[in-house]
């Protein structure tokens, strides 16, 4: 590559020393399929002389085969990576490109403009400080432009460049350029951008990309590259409060205990007082250790290890904060959520939550509304599908220390992971704490669960019957209750059909409603357990994830999962309520076993095979289990 720096040839050591102090900028480019985005990046690489001769020869070759520019080199081919994409002629994922000038090193996230790939743009934007929005001068601000601007804003990008491209096709008209600029400024005035720079250009011909164009003499601003080299994106986070999320506890021997992590914001000095969250313990920084030397001070983005004056218990996921400005703590939030999975989001379902080195369980307790990313309007909704953005309330299994995303992109962001597939299904930004954790303190009652149970001389438990419609759940549960009642036990049956007549009569049979149905019943069962009852829950409850939630609401050994395992053919042949016939005839939609999935339990406490035994035998078998496991021991 032919860097044109004289120093390279004459004083290589001087050159290397100068290069060591370059700054760094990460940006993304976004535009629709034909806005010329890949051509623009190709042009930046080409004009910065960062393309080797063999790479150029290779794309010259490709240009003749699949290029769109006739005999000219198709610069877009430099950046269109994967073979399948080349055939389709579109970019389908996030690609990272690198180039540098004497002032800065750049990392470009090349993100696709294709409608269904919002998630890729969000991925590129999450680590970028600046976004270049490509606008075709012939068409002006389009739906896609609005979407890209919104996502950039959502992910916290404050610096925008509108690259008004293909100006050569409209004779570099100043009027057209100014109209587009004012349209964009008007539309984006509430998106929180700190600066917007509009540049008229032709990526194809190179106007205003790396050097000023003579064809747009009316334009007084910088060419794109000059702007990128000089724009100040120092977001002021060095002056933000100190945050060190502990990533790894460093214990080479018994005498050393250090806390390693990357500083998320602010600075820290030796001798400074800190507070550790969530424990709230305080201490003073003893040393800031790096492999090279111990430091007096460390700052944002540095990966360090610190030791403290006092021996306090700190583990991965804790956040070490400045004493005077600690992070907030909560387990209930409002958050913006971007869904990234083909499997839709259901409020109520549990996901793994990962943020700043901390892993917890989370459930979306409520989807307040969806955001239409095209016109920013709010829409009601029960679930989120791939590429949708929603505002939701989020509940965690334990409190975390955090900052709002607006204040801190590191301590305010999180991802959601599917517990079964391990896929990253959603990403989110914390808006604020709902403060329920702080304000709605659990009302401590004088009479406790164990006392109520003692009064009844029994151990409370939930017997959770799951199985297909017509498998015999309710009949068996009914028999079990009769036996327990005769033994003098206090019981109650929550039956799927009966509950749908009252508590859950507003719910239908879509997947989202089924999830909510089970969530309400789980909470009700929990209250009954608290009251000291033996509760029999007889629900199809087809999804593992919801049964798992019910289990996690209760204490260990309080939840007994009973799989009433009747094969579909047998249940359908019985068809006690005539429902299978209706479902087969298409009169009932979303019927479990027919057109809705049933997920068998993986490790149920009890499996009942109703082909081999009667409902009475099954009930006795369950009571035997309760006896054998101490559930029916008389409590003194």
């Amino acid at each position: 590559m032919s860097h044109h720096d004289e120093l390279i040839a004459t004083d290589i050591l001087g050159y290397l020393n100068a290069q060591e102090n370059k700054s760094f900028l990460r940006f993304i480019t976004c535009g629709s399929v034909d806005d010329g985005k890949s051509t623009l990046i190709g042009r930046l690489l080409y004009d910065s002389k960062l393309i080797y001769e063999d790479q150029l020869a290779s794309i010259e070759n490709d240009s003749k085969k699949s290029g769109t520019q006739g005999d000219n080199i198709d610069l877009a081919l430099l950046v269109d990576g994967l073979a399948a994409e080349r055939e389709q002629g579109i970019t389908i994922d996030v690609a990272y490109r690198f180039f540098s000038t004497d002032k800065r090193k750049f990392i470009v996230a090349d993100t696709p403009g294709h409608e269904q790939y919002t998630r890729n743009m969000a991925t590129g934007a999450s680590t970028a400080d600046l976004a270049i929005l490509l606008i075709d001068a012939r068409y002006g601000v389009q739906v896609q432009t609005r979407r890209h601007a919104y996502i950039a804003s959502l992910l916290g990008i404050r610096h925008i460049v509108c690259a008004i491209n293909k100006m050569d096709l409209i004779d570099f008209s100043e009027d057209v350029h100014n109209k587009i600029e004012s349209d964009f400024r008007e539309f984006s005035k509430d998106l929180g951008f700190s600066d917007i720079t509009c540049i008229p250009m032709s990526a194809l011909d190179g106007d205003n990309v790396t050097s000023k164009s003579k064809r747009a003499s009316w334009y007084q601003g910088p060419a794109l590259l000059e702007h990128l080299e000089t724009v100040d994106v120092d977001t002021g986070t060095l002056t933000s409060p100190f945050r060190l999320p502990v990533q790894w506890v460093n214990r080479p021997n018994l005498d050393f205990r250090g806390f390693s992590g990357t500083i998320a914001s602010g600075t820290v000095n030796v001798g400074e007082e800190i507070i550790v969250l969530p424990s709230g313990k305080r201490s003073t920084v003893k040393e800031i250790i790096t492999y090279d030397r111990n430091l007096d001070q460390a700052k944002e983005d540095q990966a360090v290890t610190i030791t403290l004056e006092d021996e306090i218990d700190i583990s991965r996921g804790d956040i070490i904060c400045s004493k005077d400005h600690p992070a907030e703590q909560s387990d209930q939030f409002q958050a913006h959520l971007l869904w990234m999975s083909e499997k839709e989001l259901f409020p109520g379902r549990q996901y793994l939550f990962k943020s700043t080195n901390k892993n917890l369980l989370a459930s979306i307790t409520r989807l307040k509304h969806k955001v239409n990313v095209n016109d920013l309007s709010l829409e009601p909704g029960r679930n989120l599908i791939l590429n949708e953005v929603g505002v939701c309330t989020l509940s965690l299994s334990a409190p975390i220390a955090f900052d709002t995303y607006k204040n801190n992109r590191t301590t305010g962001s999180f991802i959601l992971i599917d517990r079964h597939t391990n896929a990253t299904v959603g990403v989110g930004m914390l808006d604020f704490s709902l403060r329920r954790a702080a304000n709605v303190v659990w009302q401590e009652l004088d009479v406790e669960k164990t006392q109520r149970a003692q009064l009844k001389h029994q151990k409370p438990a939930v017997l959770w019957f799951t199985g297909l419609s017509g498998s015999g759940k309710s009949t068996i549960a009914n028999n079990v209750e009769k036996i327990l009642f005769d033994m003098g036990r206090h019981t109650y049956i929550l039956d799927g059909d009966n509950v749908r007549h009252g508590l859950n009569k507003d719910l239908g049979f879509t997947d989202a409603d089924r999830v909510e149905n089970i969530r309400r019943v789980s909470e009700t069962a929990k209250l009954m357990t608290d009251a000291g009852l033996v509760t029999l829950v007889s629900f199809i409850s087809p999804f593992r994830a919801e049964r798992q939630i019910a289990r996690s609401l209760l204490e260990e050994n309080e939840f007994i999962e009973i799989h009433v395992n009747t094969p579909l053919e047998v249940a359908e042949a019985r068809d006690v309520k005539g429902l299978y016939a209706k479902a087969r005839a298409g009169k009932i939609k979303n019927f479990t076993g027919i057109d809705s999935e049933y997920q068998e339990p993986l490790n149920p406490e009890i499996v009942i095979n109703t082909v081999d035994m009667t409902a009475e035998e099954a009930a006795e078998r369950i009571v035997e289990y309760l006896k054998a496991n101490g559930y029916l021991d008389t409590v003194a």
Partner: protein
Amino acid sequence: MSQLTHLERLEAESIHIMREVAAECENPVMLYSVGKDSSVMLHLAEKAFYPSKPPFPLMHVDTTWKFKEMIEFRDRRAKEVGMDLIVHINPEGKAAGVGPFTHGSAVHTDIMKTQGLKQALNKYKFDAAFGGARRDEEKSRAKERIFSFRSEQHRWDAKNQRPELWNIFNTRVHKGESMRVFPLSNWTELDIWQYIHKENIEIPSLYLSEIRPVVEKDGVLILVDDDRMPIGPNDVIQEKMVRFRTLGCYPLTGAVQSEATTLPEVIQEMLLTTTSERQGRVIDSDAGASMEKKKEEGYF
């Protein structure tokens, strides 16, 4: 106060990635190929965990055709750093006498390198393996995640990669599945050289020019590294001032004629040169998308 420089940022990012693996993965390993990128990666690992030793072993998949100096360098460096070194050689390949001269570069690379790596990962049940690949090396790499998921068959599915946002990495795998982790993803070749210079990192002397015995084969200068090199009647062993831009199997790695005997001179030549780094590798001279195919099959 100024923000970090670009090299400081890259260093911190790599350290963050390594610590995340150490904290979350059960049985990680660092693949060590003895080249300049591996040297940088090893140096970063020492920094990441200091004063502890890096909490994982090094592993080298040896094809038995590496430059002699690479093997000496590897063994010495592992000892100096105090990390365990696992060396794996594909036993069937070795028994069958597979080599580039007898079986050709494609077969040799597949059996001794790709299959050898899969064997080793299966044998030791590693759930995460660090590799020194960079996104600027090759077009399909530019789209690969830093934490790159591999199926039980070690396959990479370009269309089904996990979204990777901020610096939050999803490290979760089921039994048998694994992660390839690339802490140098965002480094360029120039960054690597600048960092080696700045940090004074030791690299094999093969990167520096000296008089070496070479034979020209199909227009490529091949080092006569040992007596397994077939010298035909028309081959002439010449003493030339040469160095290597990448290190691999000596019969598959072309030397370049150069006067650069110091690191700054090597960087100077690289900056003034007009062909990219991978051109010296025989494996890349196939069709444009060959690396992507190889990766889907499990090549690192």
